[in-house]
């Protein structure tokens, strides 16, 4: 079963990001092709999360250009990224702790809900229909992620692994064309990791989503990704197929330290 990797849909050119005096990213350029699984790896503090934040507009780079779906931009706005089909998960789980699993995933559908507050208040035709229609879609995702038994539980009460799954569900609910995953397997045991890998591969396979993935587990990265970018201290030190990157001297030095 081979998949067709398409053309470049995201092209990052010379991105530089600073916070006051701290340089988070320096002159980073790489691209992402349609339907591929692109991993971003690197030691802690390398700027990987910042890179994702730039892609979907949470941070705005001081320099550089983002070309997404052919459109060139100096910066992304979060809302724009969402409507253009980019969804993401966060390193420290950004779920809405006061709501249930079902409600959290329903919020993922919000860009597709057209009814306004008055229609909601009166629970008129369109409001009611939309709610049911999107409920069906969300239940499909709940089935896919095997979390039926916790759909009404407030997410704050769930164990870490399940919260991560719910967060993935919320991202999937948006039917994204590109999914940004920030350490989706952090803190999981072997079984949970296998489940999460399966979900990611299924999403890539069945829904055709492009995946940009930050991950520390080298086994996972080598196994499932098509291409890898390596960052260190905010700079790009490697870019290519998993095997190429694995044997790259700079990458090895960055992770293991140089011997003098």
């Amino acid at each position: 079963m081979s998949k067709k990797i398409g053309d470049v849909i995201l092209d990052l050119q010379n991105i530089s990001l600073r916070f006051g005096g701290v340089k988070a990213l320096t002159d980073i350029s790489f691209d992402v092709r349609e339907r591929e699984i692109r991993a971003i790896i690197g030691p802690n503090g390398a700027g990987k999360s910042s890179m994702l934040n730039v892609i979907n507009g949470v941070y705005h780079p001081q320099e550089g250009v983002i070309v997404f779906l052919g459109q060139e931009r100096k910066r992304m706005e979060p809302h724009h990224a969402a409507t253009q089909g980019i969804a993401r998960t966060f390193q420290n789980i950004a779920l809405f702790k006061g709501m249930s699993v079902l409600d959290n995933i329903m919020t993922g559908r919000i860009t597709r809900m057209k009814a306004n507050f008055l229609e909601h208040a009166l629970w008129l035709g369109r409001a009611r229909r939309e709610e049911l229609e999107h409920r069906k879609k969300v239940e499909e995702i709940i089935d896919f992620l095997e979390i039926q038994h916790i759909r009404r539980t407030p997410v704050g009460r769930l164990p870490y692994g399940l919260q991560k799954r719910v967060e993935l569900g919320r991202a999937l609910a948006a039917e994204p064309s590109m999914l940004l995953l920030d350490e989706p397997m952090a803190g999981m045991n072997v079984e949970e990791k296998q489940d999460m890998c399966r979900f990611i591969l299924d999403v890539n396979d069945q829904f055709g989503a492009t995946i940009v993935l930050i991950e520390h587990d080298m086994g996972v990265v080598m196994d499932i990704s098509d291409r890898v970018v390596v960052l260190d201290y905010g700079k790009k030190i490697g870019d290519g197929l998993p095997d190429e990157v694995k044997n790259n001297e700079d990458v090895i030095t960055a992770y293991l330290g140089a011997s003098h």
Partner: protein
Amino acid sequence: MIYREAGQFKTSYAADQQLFPIRQDRIGILILLAVVFLAIPGIASEYWFSAILIPFLIFSLAALGLNILTGYAGQLSLGSAAFMAVGAYAAYNFQLRIDGIPILISFGFAGLTAAGVGILFGLPSLWIKGFYLAVATLAAQFFIVWCLTKFPWFSNYSSSGVISAQKVVILGHEFASPREKYLLVLSIVAVMALAAKNMVRSSTGRAWMAVRDMDVAAAVIGIRLMPTKLLAFAVSSFYCGVAGALYAFCYLGSVEPDGFSLDMSFRILFMIIIGGVGSILGSFLGAAFILLLPIFLDITLPWAAGLLGLPFSNATVSHIQILLFGTLIMFFLIVEPHGLARLWQIGKEKLRLWPFPH
């Protein structure tokens, strides 16, 4: 045992989404509606209507408004009384200056006016949060009351800004007696409470709660923060505005700007803290609690003081009241941050098993 849900399966999402999916709840609500609409008007005394039921309903409405803003959307506001004032004075002016306008339309316009003012003072929420926002709402509270006092046009050039609400006449019938006013207020509050419940269950409510829980994540999934926050201010102020109009027209009869003081704003805040932040039911429970407590104290304290042989004065009652409010706020925040509404839920869950122990 009473509250047994077993056997009540839902076979469609539509059934699952009903307002009251559990049969016992449906029966309970029907009984409640029968009691408040049919039984109470028959048996309650005038005192009960004027002094207890009508203000309870009005403040429940205001508490609903504040709950939407602070409880669901997470925008702390210390200015609810000011928006009530806007509603009261707007309704008065609409009635006064537009000949023949139906009073319900006046109430509606009053709510819309308050919503507009609410949006204006809600603009700071676009870039400040938490207690900074609280200070901004304090600005609204003080400034609005000052405006209503100092610009004589609002009170039709009366001295010290006092206005006397006009008569409430709908379709030729004057709602003059406390019983009639009660039914009118009850109907308005019931409809608005239903609307509120529908809103918070829908994606409008989810957007509010998302902004409350983590606004960065909300922006990332495509929720537009500005319209969402401003809508919360608008809807909340609408509710407070209508409550204010009812306060003037169906409760006190005549009001002045200073009557909508910071103290009242605090009371409404206490209602939602004690009743349950982020809960429609909680708004009602909290309003009942805060309104009934002073009455309860008025009755029991002199008796208790007499029993213990302690010296007593009216000032002491009001001090004890303030003391109790403060204590209860701290108590609820520590012990049950979700307020009486959560206690009610826990009670229902216990009823699932009772009288069996497990």
